[in-house]
């Protein structure tokens, strides 16, 4: 929480008294009763923890207005006027049913009696809440002025200027001569990794090389088209979007699993493979539940897409439901405004945006849309998990990773356990009176257990088969406008603002008048229209960055005034225009960029050019980049021949269901592509984290590209890389008869090109000099890895594959290798995987 806010921005906030709601009519006598008996008691016993004055709303409850009592807190309305028995407040002052207030000693009997009378009277209460009046410092004039910022104006079309013509102009002006086209080996490796995140195989290298001899242009074009059509394309490019979408399968904070999050992951991968138009992709993620869906299959897809809004970091241990909602909505706004619009609207939660013409009202206009939306994320109400919700039951039962072996017996067993627990709990309610803390503890324990059982039953159909659920959003039951919160603090509400969008976007801004819908569909459409000056540019910039190794706008998720200006706005605008021209096809844009000369240049250093443009802003050469964590892991599995290109069903968390995530490193040793590794917040996979996998607690625009000794230690000494070296050596020994052939093909596999003479010399020297540790002639059986995941039917550990007919004896043995870890060829293979040429894509 920001501290000393008013001190920081003196004079910006004018506080005036106002009313949140009109008061009911009560007699003077009733008001006197309140003033004489109730107000003093509330002040004495309750205000410390439940009043705006103390800025404290424990359990989400204020008791300082009638309205607040009716609204209640964590447990629902605190009072049912006229009915003490149904009022939680009555339970609490009587220390009943798990509520004991005030916590240290009950109030005197006569005070308790007054509360009864008061509730029976219908809760007469003259108190009104002080509502501050928020005055923005950003005026209409500021907003008009703000519209002049480049990113708030529509891109200008430059007839049909090509990427190369725009870049060449810049190079000529700076008197730089661009590097020539890269050689076919380098180019093929680049195209493969950029499109699929995988290295080319030996046969692909040979085929491409011979095509190149006939016609290089045609060879490249055919290769790009071929790879764009492969399912591995979506696995690489979907992962780029999953970084932005802060995809993870657990809540973070008080970490609980999101065992259905993987459906959103698969949706994203499929969307890229289908080349779903980006405007549609956006609409589905923001408001898929509201889009017309002619078929159940489409509806299903649209619902899963809204998981985008539901998978973010959440504090399920938050006792105050309004605080929870406020934080969740903030996380949603932060993610989708940065992700789609390249704007940091989240900054306007506590104060007017410091840089952009985004007043706090705009933030709360959007917040109202999300307050009128139900975010469905699941989780069971067990110990310390206070905030739960249902999930979306999907129209079509899809394949789920949960065993249905128990069938109806499981369902019956759960039902009888639930009935038993409910009966015990009911019986408990009758015994154990006031002051019996042990009874309270037992009750909590029983309730926990009951909720856990209910959670287990909820995910099953009557016949014991698992139900298909998704995380996502639906329209709320009540359409509300949000109150501005001063400093973002719940305890300091100011006036309400109508649901809407951003004033700086001019006629794309709207106000929701209807009480029948949240305005979320309208919001999605205002974001996805080509008239939005941000959306197409932001995505075009991201795609450019992933292919060229350098974004045009260096702050890809911030196109606002505090972001960087485009290095070449003409180029960015032209990409954005063409993106829309081609019906927002991401594959088309990728294709166009890859077929440009700029993409195909080699990375050769030139002293002259470097002297003028060291950062390669003008793109006189290609930008080398380290392989991303997933690429590195997948590539070692390709080299070792162990990769399984099938899609993994769900993930380790999808299989384990509700509960807390364990380390994400557990499934490292399966052989699926890395995009299918479990992603748990705050429990990163050791290898992924070491190689800069981003923190999924927040949206990520671009990854760090660090090169640190911890990575070197990983390549030199880790179990995982050691094994890949062994498996690769095994494969080479099987497929090639001479040492020379083995070494030559090892280079071709790892580098995508034949070895140079110097590299061969170094290799020969190694084989001459290398001496394994003495007395170690026997192969070391390192059977410590490659565990299959439960329910995989042994598919998880593919170590037995390609072992010269030797069957893996069991899952636990699946990772043993015929070649020892200290075998010279295994060490050699591991060295190739560790080398810079392998780890850096040029």
């Amino acid at each position, binding site marked *: 929480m920001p*501290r000393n806010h008013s001190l920081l921005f003196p004079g910006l906030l004018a506080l005036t008294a106002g009313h949140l709601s009109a008061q009911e009519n009560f007699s003077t006598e009733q008001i006197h009763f309140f003033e004489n008996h109730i107000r003093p008691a509330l002040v004495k016993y309750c205000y410390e923890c439940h009043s705006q004055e103390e800025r404290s709303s424990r359990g989400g409850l204020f008791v300082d207005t009638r309205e607040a009592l009716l609204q209640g807190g964590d447990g629902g309305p605190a009072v049912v006027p006229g009915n003490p028995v149904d009022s939680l407040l009555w339970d609490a002052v009587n220390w009943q049913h798990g509520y004991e207030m005030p916590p240290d000693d009950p109030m005197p009997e006569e005070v308790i009696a007054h509360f009864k009378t008061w509730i029976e009277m219908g809760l007469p209460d003259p108190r009104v809440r002080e509502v501050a009046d928020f005055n923005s410092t950003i005026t209409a004039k500021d907003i008009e002025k703000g519209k002049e910022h480049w990113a708030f104006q529509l891109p200008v079309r430059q007839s049909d200027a090509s990427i190369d013509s725009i870049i060449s102009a810049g190079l000529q002006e700076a008197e730089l001569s661009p590097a020539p086209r890269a050689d076919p080996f380098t180019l093929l490796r680049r195209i493969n990794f950029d499109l699929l995140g995988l290295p080319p195989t030996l046969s692909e290298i040979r085929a491409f090389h011979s095509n190149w001899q006939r016609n290089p242009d045609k060879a490249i074009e055919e290769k790009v088209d071929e790879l764009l059509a492969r399912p591995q394309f979506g696995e690489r490019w979907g992962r780029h979007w999953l970084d932005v979408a802060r995809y993870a399968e657990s809540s973070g904070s008080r970490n609980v699993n999101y065992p259905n999050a993987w459906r959103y992951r698969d949706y994203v991968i499929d969307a890229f493979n289908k080349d779903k138009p980006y405007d549609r992709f956006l609409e589905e993620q923001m408001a898929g539940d509201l889009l017309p869906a002619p078929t159940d299959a489409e509806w299903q897809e649209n619902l899963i897409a809204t998981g985008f809004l539901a998978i973010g970091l959440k504090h399920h241990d938050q006792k105050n439901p309004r605080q929870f909602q406020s934080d969740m909505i903030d996380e949603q706004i932060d993610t989708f405004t940065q992700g789609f619009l390249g704007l940091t609207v989240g900054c306007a939660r506590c104060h007017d945006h410091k840089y952009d013409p985004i007043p706090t009202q705009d933030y709360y206009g959007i917040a109202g849309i999300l307050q009128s939306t139900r975010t469905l994320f699941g989780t069971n109400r067990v110990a310390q998990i206070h905030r739960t919700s249902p999930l979306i039951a999907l129209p079509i039962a899809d394949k789920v990773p949960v065993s249905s072996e128990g069938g109806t017996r499981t369902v019956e067993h759960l039902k009888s356990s639930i009935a038993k627990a409910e009966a015990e709990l009911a019986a408990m309610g009758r015994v154990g009176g006031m002051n019996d803390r042990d009874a309270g503890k037992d009750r909590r324990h029983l309730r926990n257990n009951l909720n856990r059982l209910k959670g287990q039953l909820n995910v099953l159909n009557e016949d014991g088969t698992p139900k298909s659920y998704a995380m996502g959003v639906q329209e709320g039951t009540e359409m509300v406008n949000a109150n501005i919160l001063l400093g973002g603090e719940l305890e300091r509400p100011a006036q309400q603002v109508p649901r809407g969008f951003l004033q700086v976007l001019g006629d794309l801004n709207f106000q929701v008048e209807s009480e029948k819908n949240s305005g979320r569909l309208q919001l999605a459409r205002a974001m996805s229209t080509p008239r939005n000056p941000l959306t197409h540019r932001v995505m075009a910039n991201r795609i450019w960055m992933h292919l060229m190794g350098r974004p045009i706008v260096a*702050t890809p998720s911030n196109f606002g005034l505090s972001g960087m200006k485009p290095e070449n706005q003409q180029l960015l605008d032209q990409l954005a225009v063409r993106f829309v021209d081609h019906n927002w096809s991401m594959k088309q844009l990728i294709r166009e960029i890859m077929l440009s000369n700029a993409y195909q240049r080699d990375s050769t250093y030139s002293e002259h050019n470097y002297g003028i443009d060291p950062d390669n802003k003008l793109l006189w050469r290609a930008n080398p980049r380290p392989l991303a964590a997933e690429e590195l892991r997948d590539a070692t599995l390709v080299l070792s021949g162990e990769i399984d290109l099938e899609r993994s069903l769900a993930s380790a968390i999808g299989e384990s269901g509700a509960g807390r995530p364990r380390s994400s490193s557990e499934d490292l040793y399966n052989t699926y592509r890395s995009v299918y590794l479990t992603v748990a917040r705050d429990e990163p996979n050791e290898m992924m984290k070491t190689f*800069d996998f981003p923190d999924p607690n927040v949206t990520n625009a671009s990854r760090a590209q660090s090169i640190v000794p911890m990575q070197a230690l990983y390549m030199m000494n880790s179990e995982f890389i050691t094994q890949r070296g062994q498996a690769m050596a095994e494969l080479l020994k099987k497929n090639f008869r001479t040492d020379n052939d083995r070494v030559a093909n090892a280079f071709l596999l790892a580098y995508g090109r034949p070895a140079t003479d110097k590299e061969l010399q170094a290799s020969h020297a190694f084989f001459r000099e290398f001496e394994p540790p003495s007395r170690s002639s026997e192969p070391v059986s390192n059977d410590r890895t490659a565990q299959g995941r439960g329910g995989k039917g042994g598919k998880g550990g593919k170590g037995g594959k390609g072992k010269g007919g030797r069957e893996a004896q069991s899952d636990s043995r699946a990772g043993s290798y015929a070649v020892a870890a200290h075998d010279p060829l295994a060490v050699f293979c591991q060295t190739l995987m560790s080398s810079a040429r392998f780890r*850096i894509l040029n």
Partner: protein
Amino acid sequence: MNTLTRRQALQTVSSGLGSLAFASMATQQALAENPLAPQPTHFPARAKHVIMVFMSGAPSHVDTFDYKPALIKNDGSNGGRAGKMMAPKWEFRQRGESGLWISDLFPHLSKQADELCLLRGMHGDQPNHPTAERAAHTGTGQFIRPSLGAWSVYGLGTENTDLPGFVHMGNQFRGSESINLGNAFLPARYQATTVNPGTEAPRPTGGNSSRSKGKGKGGGEETKESVPNISNSHLDLRAQRTQLDLLKRLNEETLRQEKHQPQVEGILQSYELAYRMQSSMPQVMNLAQESGPTKTMYGLDDPATAPFGTQCLLARRMVESGVRFVEIANGGWDHHTDITRLEGNCGAVDKPLAALIADLKQRDLLKDTLVIWGTEFGRTPHGTGNGRGHNNKGFTTWMAGGGVKGGFSYGSTDDLGYEAVDGKMHTHDWHATILHLLGIDHEQLTYHYAGRDFRLTDVYGNVAKDILA
């Protein structure tokens, strides 16, 4: 005031001019070669190294370092707040020449009273353990931000590039590990390297030694390495050197082809450093080089003090070897229901802490090593059953060495110990002061991320100049 002008002014600030990383061309050059190279400070540093011991769970200040006669007098009375006043169960005495009041819970540390700078006016925003611990480490309980240690190494680099700049030992932080010790948006090289003392796996000296550790064994007893992947399971150093020679030649060949390629250079150097770390790390971790009396001084002969004592001794060894920031996390200080358990917790750290200060001093390391005893918040003067409640409005931490006044008390809480009233030090002020001692202006140590410049202290923080020696 013209708002647009103000906004424009802020934009100028955001353009990264304040960052240390842009201090000079020479620094830039050095950073390009080695991003962890020592960097110039904003002003002369008082401390070059930090050892932060973090008592996770919030020890009671009124039972340890904050003497409250009024609380003792009012024992059992209802102070108008929720619960009855609870006097400390341990005697307070004046210690050393300086006469600082410290309770009998710290008999050994009390002998070093004249080195201690008690910060008795601490306060923070977060009343719950996980968020308060995050705030104490990163300046915010709400967002994911870099740890104090990460900021320190980002700002200063490190002196011994054979070793990590930021090392963590001891307890984990209930689910917030990666946050409290993490680099967040800073590059990964600034994150803490977690070291588990005493479980170093021996390198095979030859022979068919199958590896005893490993992740794939299906749980159960695992021997953890002191640093991830610090040793090789199947090659001895000679064999590995042959391997690394090949690696070096391959990388040099790549570099020859590419001519100018910082990433390739970086990889080349990282293997050589990693290779050296394989020897240097275990060497730092090897306590066999320490004398018997030293070990006894740190309490290594007593099971109660040995774990924390080992960590303190290792912290000294690391600082000696040039590690910039060492953090030792010590858990179990949550005395909500039973305050008497404080005795056990204090007993486990008292002797090692006293030894650490004495040992640093006798080696002339204390003058530029800042020792910090930190925690997330304090405890209420009234009781909650036999324990004490959470109190983020007033608590005590202390520092020693590293350019702070010894035998000094700064700030105070009210008569009962509820709230900081004087010499108030918010968590942000605490961070600002620590960075100041390291020669860093907390307002200028920025990192540009997601469109703006971030600081450890956000827009807050005042340096407590009164405590500077």
